[in-house]
């Protein structure tokens, strides 16, 4: 069947086939195995345009799960331990440390920049002796499975551009999301599910919102758009058949549609018509595959216990982590989670505790779960926000209350699996937690590294649009070799 479909379309128009089929570039190799003359015949030379040197090298990771902490969690209450800040509590940030850093409008007019140390204590965990705050005990326990990067930096200081930058490699919007690039580069492993899926959850902390443009396909074909899975009755938009129509009736209708479309195809000869029939068939298969994925009733008690009771409450971060594992396990290339509520301009001690409570256990459980299943080696898990937070208090510093403003110059994220060296801490900030003193990692470097782990050379994964070859990493980016195992 597969072969018939391929051949049918190929006979009609090779190029259109390649640009439209819901397979990625990598899968073209597969196509050419099935049909040896895929790249021969007339116009063969132009086909090269669709394989920009892929696969570039053997991949370490096959899939990505990105646990995005939206709003920017403070590194100083999580993974970057700075006792000095407690010692200097209330003293002004020395201007020599701040240097030429631009401040946001929220603190630019503050007369003082009182340093503030973490309200929460830190402990060292595992053989790696990584420092993790008491807010994240579960993540602490998997310290030997993860790689903490304490030297991330970005270019943007406000949420929208910073988020957009992390997701698309550019601040201004309209570019494909990272997941879309991966879908474009590698295609789907599962014919019944989209290659790029998105899961949203929200904490009680001050939120900044996420938006669908973050998982947009930009100038890539919309088959690479992130598909949002949500809790509730209709996990994918329009997935459920209309009331009163069951699967058998839908099948009947699809058969009639195919018959009628075929009449039209015979008249017009337009390959779009047969492509349409195929899309209806994939939709039909998705209708069966998605509810199966969403169903957690078959998960063992141990698993439920590990992720925590929230994982049975649809729409929570914990439920999304469990769902992420299932999607990933079923071949979804890129699962993008967003957990909102990390923008602690004030009330940080209280709000951050709530946010950490939402994500700590389930994030750790996901890594452990994947490891137990032998999937961690081929799945790259990423945890982090869009920038860091200032080492001084925004507004008044009180004994048990303070806030932190945006800080792009230095913050922490962690990664696990997918060929990333476990149990290490990479990069270092100064004793104020303000500037990076060792091994800085730019957002472009981060992107280059992720693509690298997927077997994609970030300089070669390009798409020509409006006269320019675009990359996720724009014109920059270096693979961070120091974190590769």
């Amino acid at each position: 069947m597969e072969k018939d479909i391929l051949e049918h379309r190929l006979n009609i128009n090779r190029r259109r086939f390649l640009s439209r089929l819901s397979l990625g570039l990598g899968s073209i190799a597969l196509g050419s195995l099935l049909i040896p003359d895929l790249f021969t015949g007339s116009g063969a030379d132009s086909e090269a345009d669709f394989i920009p040197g892929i696969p570039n090298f053997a991949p370490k990771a096959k899939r990505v799960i990105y646990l995005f902490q939206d709003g920017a969690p403070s590194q100083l209450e999580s993974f970057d331990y700075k006792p000095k800040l407690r010692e200097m509590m209330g003293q002004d940030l020395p201007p020599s440390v701040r240097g030429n850093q631009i401040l946001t409008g929220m603190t630019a007019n503050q007369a003082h920049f009182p340093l503030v140390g973490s309200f929460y204590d830190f402990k060292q965990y595992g053989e790696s002796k990584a420092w993790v705050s008491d807010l994240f005990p579960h993540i602490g326990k998997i310290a030997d499975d993860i790689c903490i990067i304490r030297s991330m930096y970005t270019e943007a200081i406000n949420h929208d551009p910073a988020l957009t930058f992390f997701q698309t490699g550019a601040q201004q919007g309209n570019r494909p999301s990272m997941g879309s690039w991966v879908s474009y580069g590698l295609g789907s492993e599962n014919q019944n599910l989209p290659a790029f899926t998105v899961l949203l959850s929200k904490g009680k902390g001050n939120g900044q919102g996420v938006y669908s443009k973050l998982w947009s396909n930009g100038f890539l074909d919309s088959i690479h758009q992130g598909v949002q899975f949500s809790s509730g009755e209709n996990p994918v938009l329009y997935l459920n058949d209309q009331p009163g129509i069951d699967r058998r009736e839908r099948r009947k209708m699809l058969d009639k549609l195919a018959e009628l479309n075929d009449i039209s195809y015979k008249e017009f000869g337009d390959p779009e018509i047969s492509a349409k029939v195929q899309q209806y068939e994939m939709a039909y298969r998705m209708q069966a595959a998605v509810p199966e994925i969403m169903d957690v009733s078959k998960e063992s008690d141990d698993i439920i216990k590990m992720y925590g009771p929230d994982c049975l409450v649809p729409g929570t971060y914990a439920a999304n982590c469990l769902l992420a594992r299932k999607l990933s396990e079923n071949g979804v290339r890129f699962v993008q989670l967003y957990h909102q509520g990390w923008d602690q301009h004030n009330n940080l001690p209280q709000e951050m505790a709530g946010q950490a409570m939402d994500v700590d256990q389930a994030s750790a459980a996901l890594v452990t779960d994947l490891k137990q299943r032998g999937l961690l080696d081929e799945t790259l898990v990423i945890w982090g926000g869009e920038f860091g937070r200032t080492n001084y208090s925004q507004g008044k510093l009180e004994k048990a209350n303070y806030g932190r403003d945006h800080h792009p110059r230095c913050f922490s994220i962690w990664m696990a699996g997918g060929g990333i060296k476990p149990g290490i801490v990479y990069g270092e900030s100064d004793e104020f937690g303000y500037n990076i003193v060792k091994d800085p990692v730019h957002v472009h470097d981060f992107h280059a590294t992720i693509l690298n782990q997927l077997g994609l050379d970030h300089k070669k994964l390009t798409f020509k649009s409006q006269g320019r070859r675009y990359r996720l990493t724009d014109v920059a980016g270096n693979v961070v070799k120091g974190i590769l195992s």
Partner: protein
Amino acid sequence: MPASNIEDQIPDTVSYNFNIRPILSDKCYKCHGPDASKRQAGLRLDKPESAFKALRDNPNAHVLVAGMPEMSELFKRVSTNDTSEMMPPANSNLKRLTPHEVDLVKKWIKQGAKYEKHWAFVSPKSWPVPEVKDKEWPKNPIDNFILHKQEQYGVKPSPEADKEHLLKRVSLDLTGLPPTLAMQNTFLADKNPDAYNKVVDELMKSPAYGEKMALHWMDVARYADSHGYQDDNYRTQWPWRDWVIHAYNENLPYDKFISWQLAGDLMPNANKEQLLATGFNRNHKITEEGGVIDEEYRVAYVTDRTNTFGKALLGVTIECAHCHDHKYDPFSQKEYYQLFSFFNSVKEPGIQSTVGGPETYAKRPMMQVTNDDVKGILKFINKQDTGKLIVSVMGDSEVYRKTYILKRGNYDAHGDEVEPGTPKSILPFDNSLPKNRLGLAKWLFDKRNPLTARVFVNQTWQELFGKGIVKSSGDFGMQGDLPSHPELLDWLAVDFMNHGWDMKRLVKQMVMSATYRQSAVITADKMKVDPDNTLLTRGPRYRLHAELVRDLVLASSGLLTPTIGGPSVNPYQPPGLWENATSGRGILASYKQVHGSDLYRRGMYTLIKRTVPPVEMAIFDASNRDQCEVKRLRTNTPLQALLMENDPTVLEAARVLAAKLLADKSQSKDKITKAFRLIMCRTPNEKELGILTGYYADQLKTLNKKDAQKVLSVGEYPIPKDLDKITLAAMMETVDTIYNLEEAITKT
């Protein structure tokens, strides 16, 4: 008939512009092009004076020796297999030239290696209308150009589409709506040779014409109903949208249409309509995020305007010169900021207000639309209440704001100061013109400007034929696609200018051509020789734009509310989309669906919240209105299938149409035929009708009362009480099947 693909042929005369420059630009200019900072070996291949010089590192060798490819390093390097010599270098991430490209380079050098100025930067010429062998076929000069090229390649045009397909095509193209049954009947019965002309005139007179034309302009102008950025609260920019519809319907000439939008506020004795038109340049995103750096955002707005000006009106990627000299086109970073300076004196801060009430729905400079205005000069604005209505428009401060080159494009990294000016490779700015937006508009419509007319003519062609004569309609530069029919593009551009920039005339000229009227049937031969239909040997056959999918469904069912303009509306949308992705601030934090006739407005009136654009539109490739877009993708995905199957809008339309059909005193066969004609705009053939009546009969048998109730439960429109539920549900399913046919939402 040629055996091979048209793209594989080597022309008798190899042209630098059409055959060679695309290769050099794509594979060589990166290191041997206009960008001085990346140039290798001191060599630039884009300038003959450099390319014919002896090599810097080897004075005995020359890159180009006219007539002698074997003596030319260019040919040697691109054809060698020696990795130490080959170009592009093995480690450059650039692909090697194909054998076909190497052959072209060889022949070009043999024929003298003649350079030409980039075609798009030379004013369009008034080419003579070519002679063709088949004198019968052309209906107007467009056809002579098209047929002339076809004859050169030995291919033939398709016969005219049958009347049903043709009427559907032209009706959707001119009004965005399917032809009514009455229109279909009249047109089919009209045997007069003038019938098509008559129907075209009728369609162009319809107010829906302005809506259809405005749809594309909304993308170009990045129109939306929210401010964008993270809080993304509501804005009232829709009176500007009402003006655009009005302007198209009034057939305002293109030069005025654009000049008002660019500089209406600066016109002598500017009136309120001209001022409203300048809303164009305030449609960009405006932040309401507390704590941003003011200047950063102010610069972002000016940047957006500059980039939009470049892409929409000049068809160039001027934005590439924002951070550095353009890598491919002759635009320096300095020129970018010279253009930028025209838009840099607007009386606006980066942030004016954070999320708030109606006073924040427009940002200074703004205008108020009074109740007197809507009775007078602005009577085209569909203002539905007497509340205060404000619109963001343009207005410069009294003091000219100095403009500096921004190093690497950073808002705070001032370089040298620049004066207002335009890229000289396009057309130098005439010093007698005022150095403001009004002067810029005059420059744009200077008949010597090589781009203005071509770019618009091309966009119009794109919307009617499915793709532009220049496929990359936003990039006429070196990296863009070359025109498939350069002489035709020029002829159309010159003709457009010579006829007073008359947009309706231009559109009519295109739809009256025999080229446009061809059948869209793709024969095996056509697919083999010209799969992309570059030679236009068949008519356009494309899936409709997102908004028009909705319009077709609503119009064919009779549900459509034909109101023009007014505030945008929120029709059915799956729950939770806004609520799950919001900062929680502002009136767009949660989705408030409308009811009654507002549920059935045309797609272009669905409210666009930038950060979560309407999902039924996004799934069908609508622009998210983040930035200026001149061309939409056209994809085919499983989510589109799910939407057509299960979207309440489609289901409700099927139910409403089914109820109407059942009220007719006719046989079920006739009812289904009528539905088919309303949706597909043609009579079903016997086989199609057989399948559908069979399906209807089957549904009548299988549906039980309970399921029928459920089937009918979708949508708010009332169900007539007197109809049998099972019959209605069965008919609804049958109509729904027609809506899901590929052809239903396709322009055939």
